[in-house]
């Protein structure tokens, strides 16, 4: 009884303390905002977000959503920049993860040359500042690509030069959605088929061959639907102009350089994280797996990695966060990310440093928190259930 009241009281005290802390932080934040407003008006500097709907007036080289210098607002420019940041962050994370896992595992390889190469990669990349690497890649990308007039024609109508890679852009006619529906249906059926065959394999030991039926479901059916719908897909093929390539889907060299630099750099750190994670799994596990007759690839995939993931994921998360934050180095090579567009052009044109910087910081905070949250959810799925 006494114990109960004690712990209730302690819990109550904890809650009160937490409320007090939140209130204090809120009060500080409010005070800072109020004070800033006062100081700004005293210095005759405009304040507030009144600029948000004003016409931006500047051009942006890569826009994932419709944007025009003459009609779009500063607010629209903000979203353009944010999407560009998310795009390069997502692409960077995917490639950094793949490369990082490959290098990390290669470093533990029994093959002397492979292990040394992986080790050399990690040491070289980790010890050169990212900014230099970025400039290196940008210049390497730009210099190695042909000038406009020596443009390389790639198969399928794609064009490559130092203005970017121009791919044929798919243009979907209205009834293309029917094909998509059939494709999704086919994929669902194929998954069902796989689950069923596994289930049968476990129950009866019989092997059902599902490759051809799956292929028919995923590729064959949609193709038939595509023909039936009257081939509703066309390509906007890029054309050479006097100064530039027009039409098509454009991938800027700035984007390629930034994604490359971020992936290569972060992969070196991820490789170390992966190596540490794999080494943390006791060697007995590998021996046991091999004693059961698993091949080394299977041992890695089925026994070692799942356990290593528990060690790998937390530091991996912070590498992802680093990558996203490092993407703001985009400014030096002219890739229009959030910092370049919003904390750059918009800040300069409006002069509203306080609002713009505060919002930019809030966005990076939100992206980071979201990434951590996702990774924490993922940790739960890889956690080995305690028995």
């Amino acid at each position, binding site marked *: 009884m006494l114990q109960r009241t004690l712990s209730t009281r302690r819990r109550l005290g904890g809650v009160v303390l937490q409320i007090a802390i939140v209130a204090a932080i809120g009060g500080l934040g409010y005070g800072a905002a109020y004070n800033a407003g006062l*100081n700004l008006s005293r*210095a005759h500097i405009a304040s507030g977000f009144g600029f948000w709907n004003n016409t931006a007036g*500047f051009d*942006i080289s890569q826009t994932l959503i419709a944007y025009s210098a*003459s009609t779009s607002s500063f607010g629209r420019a903000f979203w353009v920049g944010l999407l560009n940041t998310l795009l390069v962050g997502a692409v960077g994370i995917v490639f950094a993860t793949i490369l990082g896992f490959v290098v990390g595992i290669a470093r533990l390889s029994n093959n002397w040359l492979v292990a040394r190469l992986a080790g050399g990669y990690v040491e070289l990349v980790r010890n050169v500042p990212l900014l230099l690497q970025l400039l290196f890649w940008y210049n390497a990308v*730009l210099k190695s690509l042909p000038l406009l007039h020596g443009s390389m024609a790639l198969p399928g109508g794609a064009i490559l030069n130092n203005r970017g890679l121009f791919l044929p852009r798919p243009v979907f006619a209205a009834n293309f959605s029917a094909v998509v529906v059939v494709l999704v249906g086919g994929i669902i059926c194929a998954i069902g088929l796989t689950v069923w065959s596994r289930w049968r394999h476990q129950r009866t030991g019989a092997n059902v061959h599902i490759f051809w039926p799956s292929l028919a479901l995923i590729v064959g059916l949609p193709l038939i639907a595509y023909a039936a719908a009257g081939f509703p897909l066309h390509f906007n093929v890029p054309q050479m102009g006097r100064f530039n390539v027009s039409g098509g889907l454009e991938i800027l060299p700035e984007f390629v350089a930034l994604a490359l630099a971020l992936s290569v750099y972060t992969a070196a750190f991820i490789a170390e994280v992966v190596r540490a994670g794999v080494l943390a799994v006791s060697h007995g596990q590998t021996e046991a797996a091999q004693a059961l007759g698993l091949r080394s690839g299977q041992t890695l995939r089925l026994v070692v990695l799942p356990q290593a993931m528990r060690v790998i994921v937390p530091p991996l998360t912070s590498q992802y966060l680093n990558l996203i934050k490092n993407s703001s180095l985009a*400014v030096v090579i002219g890739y229009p990310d959030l910092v370049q567009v919003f904390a750059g052009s918009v800040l300069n044109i409006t002069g509203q440093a306080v609002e713009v910087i505060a919002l930019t910081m809030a966005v990076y905070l939100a992206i980071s928190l979201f990434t951590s949250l996702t990774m924490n959810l993922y940790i739960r799925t890889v956690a080995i259930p305690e028995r």
Partner: protein
Amino acid sequence: MRRLATAVALAMALALGTQAAAATDTTLAAVKQRGELICGANGTLAGFGMPDPQGNWTGFDVDFCRAIAAAIFNDPQKVKFVPLTAKDRFTALQSGEIDVLSRNTTWTLSRDTSLGLDFAAITYFDGQGFMVRKALKVSSALELSDASVCVQQGTTSELNLADYFRSNRMSLKSVTFATGEEALKAYESGRCDAYTTDSSGLYGERLELTDPSQHIVLPEIISKEPLSPVVRHGDNQWTDIVRWTHFVMIDAEELGINKGNVDAKLKSNDPETRRLLGVEGQYGEALGLTNDWAYRIIKHVGNYGESFERNIGQGSPLKIVRGLNALWTKGGLQYGPPVR
């Protein structure tokens, strides 16, 4: 990155400080007490503001700060120059890091009203131009539809570029960089067909290219770029000092007073000359300076024309002609109100 740091510092100062940069003391008092002027300058623009390999700053905009220092301290060396990119410059001034910004900065209405800053006087009448490779065989900016154009961010150039292409119904592919150097490098590497900025800047930057003769400046001037030194809003005495520093340099040129003859001119009978040089009247003291303030400027730095020719005119590699910047008596726009 520096720019971000400055912006963050300003944000912090505004949020946490009890008083913004326009402190209790006047800028003049602060400068005198410190013993030197802190001047925001370009840092990479030949002819206007750039340190030489020994670290001595030279240039047209630099000389303007030296003139202010000469007026206050009778010593043009008492200036500390802070190199600023187009993006850093206003924040540096707002936060009080510099006393005056003398860095090819265009006077616009929005900058004048919403930044808490004031523009003192138009020291250079400029306009925006384009540079292209000769090999492109383009003779007018109107042929640039679809071209990639490298431009520096946070400049009026960025905005004029979009305006010009829109009003001439041309399609634009601009590539924007944080500094002029990066934009120029990208242009040189072939990333862009054209590079655009103030034509004053084009003169200097063309000479930095590996082979300047391969590049030409197109004839079109697409904007008005009145370049002016900038100060914080609200310190009128300081604004007056900066503004009149420019005016007396113009007046001196008009009166034929220069570095070489200024001592002799002290004995002149011409009333305008006598007022300007402080032989007669208390004009300097009215500004909070000494009465020989203008004499000091001419003695150490020279008149407007001398500074122009030495840094960007015929005495320099840039060879810019006076054009709009000739005296009003010679068909230009430079006009100094009278000292009286």
